């Protein structure tokens, strides 16, 4: 059987959710057939579920606002924001409304809105269509932020987000849609050893090419960036015998990080790698917590690798100078292992 791409898998997940749950709705810009959304995720769904897949005006605040109302009325809306860069227009709806209702009404007003959105660069889409803005949402109490990846079936992931009482943000990197899903069998064929575990109540996977105790460092990355790191980890192992334990969480803002520390303690070195801009970010927050919560077991301070804190240019060549590419990542990890 040909392995599914993430796009196909996500499409099937949404299809199944609409089929099983008649309170589920999908809202977003241009998501109706035949167009099926900017990244074709909803292809076929508006035909199969007429009226429950709704195309909206170009108004992110409106889309999220309406879905909050639907959630308060007992429905299970899933929102697609065409580019994560425009999430900011719905920021107030999430920050001052969706996250606050379950608390302000003492749990009697659950607000299970799931906002899906594509992030990231690599296509030359320029300053306002290439960013990784999830960092601005990580510090929002009440919002569950989760990043999809090619290891994790999106169906249980979205179901779990819907079952939470509050709103959730599902990050989907643009580069992920065309990637094939990594099943256990394919991982084994490719020479990986892996461990699936729960991290912040959501699935996570640790991978390596040798036994963990032989690894030189633990590298943590999420989403599509974790997939790129697999190539880097492979190259470092084959070329230099530098071995990394790659940890790929889905939950980006967990309350407890203990499972990660348990993996990191025997190895002693921790690196956080992300495509988002350097500083005030996912990586720096996790590195800070690593230092505070397990720093005494580490041989060196945790390291953050990220893209340059700069505006992302349109020119694809200049874009690659701004973004943390796999080449640069390989060089940096090689330096760190010395």
């Amino acid at each position, binding site marked *: 059987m040909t392995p599914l791409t993430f796009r196909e898998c996500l499409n099937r997940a949404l299809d199944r959710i609409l089929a099983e749950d008649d309170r589920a709705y999908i809202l977003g810009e241009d998501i109706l057939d035949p167009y099926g959304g900017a990244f074709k995720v909803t292809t076929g769904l508006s035909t199969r579920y007429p009226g429950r897949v709704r195309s909206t005006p170009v108004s992110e605040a409106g889309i999220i606002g309406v879905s909050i109302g639907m959630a308060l009325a007992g429905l299970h809306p899933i929102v697609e924001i065409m580019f994560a860069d425009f999430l900011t227009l719905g920021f107030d709806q999430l920050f001052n409304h969706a996250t606050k209702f379950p608390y302000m009404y003492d749990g009697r007003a659950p607000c299970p809105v799931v906002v899906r959105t594509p992030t990231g660069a690599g296509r030359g889409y320029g300053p306002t269509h290439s960013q990784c803005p999830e960092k601005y949402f990580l510090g929002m109490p009440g919002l569950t932020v989760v990043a999809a990846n090619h290891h994790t079936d999106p169906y249980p992931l979205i179901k779990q987000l819907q079952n939470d009482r509050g709103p959730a943000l599902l990050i989907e990197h643009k580069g992920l849609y065309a990637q094939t899903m990594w099943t256990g069998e394919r991982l084994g064929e490719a*020479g*990986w050893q*892996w461990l699936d575990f729960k991290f912040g109540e959501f699935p996570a996977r*640790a991978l390596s090419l*040798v036994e963990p105790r032989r690894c030189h460092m633990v590298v943590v990355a999420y989403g599509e960036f974790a997939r790129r790191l697999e190539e880097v980890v492979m190259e470092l*192992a084959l070329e230099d015998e530098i071995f990394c334990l790659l940890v790929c969480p889905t939950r980006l803002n967990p309350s407890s990080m203990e499972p990660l520390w348990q993996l990191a303690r025997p190895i002693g070195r921790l690196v956080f790698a992300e495509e988002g801009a350097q500083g005030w970010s996912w990586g720096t927050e996790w590195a800070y917590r690593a230092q505070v919560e397990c720093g005494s077991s580490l041989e060196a301070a945790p390291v953050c690798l990220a893209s340059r804190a700069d505006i992302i240019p349109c020119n694809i060549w200049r874009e690659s100078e701004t973004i943390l590419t796999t080449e640069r990542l390989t060089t940096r990890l090689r330096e760190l292992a010395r």
Partner: protein
Amino acid sequence: MSEDLIQKSATEQPDWVDFLLPVTNANDTSAFVLKWYVEEGDRIDAGSPLLAIETSKASLELESPVEGFVERMVSEGTKVAGATPLARIYLSWEAYAASALVGADQSENQNPAASQPGRMATKAALELAAAMGLDLAELPGRGLITKREVERWLAQQQVYEVSPKSHPQSGEMSLSANQWRIACALRNALTTGVPGFVSRSVAANSLVTFCQDYARSHRFALSETDVFLKACARTLLQFTYLNASRQSNTVHLYSQVRIALALNVEDQLVAPVIVGAERLSLRDIATWRLQAQLRVRRAEPELLDQPEPTFTLSNLAPEGVELFIPNLVPRQAGTLGIGKRGARGSSLEWVLCLTFDHTIVNGGYAARFLKSLADLLTQPESLV
């Protein structure tokens, strides 16, 4: 839950317990696994429901006997016999993590053949295998092949055993090209060099113990010769006039140590050269030596085209030699011969004999060199 439904890991502090299928009555020796209540890797409390089984009489809910992290060993809908392990419960997450990752490499439900064709090897492993003429497809086990796996395999293979050759009993034979080359070189040494000799003995037990400990902890058989090589290289770095080559009245000094190791293979004397052994790890030196021995055995020509050595090491201690005076090799500053004296244990000692070119250094310098070397050999840990 009775103790006999549990099997513990064999270590003193058990990492896990196996939970076995109970035999509920004499007629029921097997059961169907109905449903798991926990996911792979989930944490479970002692007494919490683990899975449901169905016998011919009833369905039962089985509880976890201990608190820990679950590895499911049977899948839903399968029929299992009594006392079959149903789940392994790891007592710490760390234990689960370690075993689950390694387990991915060994577990039965992975397709064992699938990983073989795509089995990858690191560059270092490929280089070593190529140098040793090994076919990595024959290497047992699974997963990524690193240099370490190749080294361990080599250590197990003992491909270095010399098969005794039969010698002609009578008649004539001509010297091999190599023998004639050496004979000429030794004759030249007598006419061009001025050999001097110094000797001293040094207690051997710390080095012998060190090699045994290294073999145990690294699972890698280190030869005493490897330690001599490194100790010599370190000492030569301080005694630069012995890391030298001389042509008439010009002495060449080198920033890196260049030692030739005299090897007697099938009655042929050859001396492959190792450059920069002072910087190499003991393991790398050992690997180099093994490769050199293999190349010598195959009579590979590259031995004739190697860097100019400054110093030769010849270890005849394994042959039971007590003391011998090694020849000075033309152009080189010195040759160290190593013998062994005394019984095993505290009285065992190395007998070091240095033949040096008296035109480059004098006896006092050579004696200080031996003293430094002897000090290093009594503290082999400092070479790691």
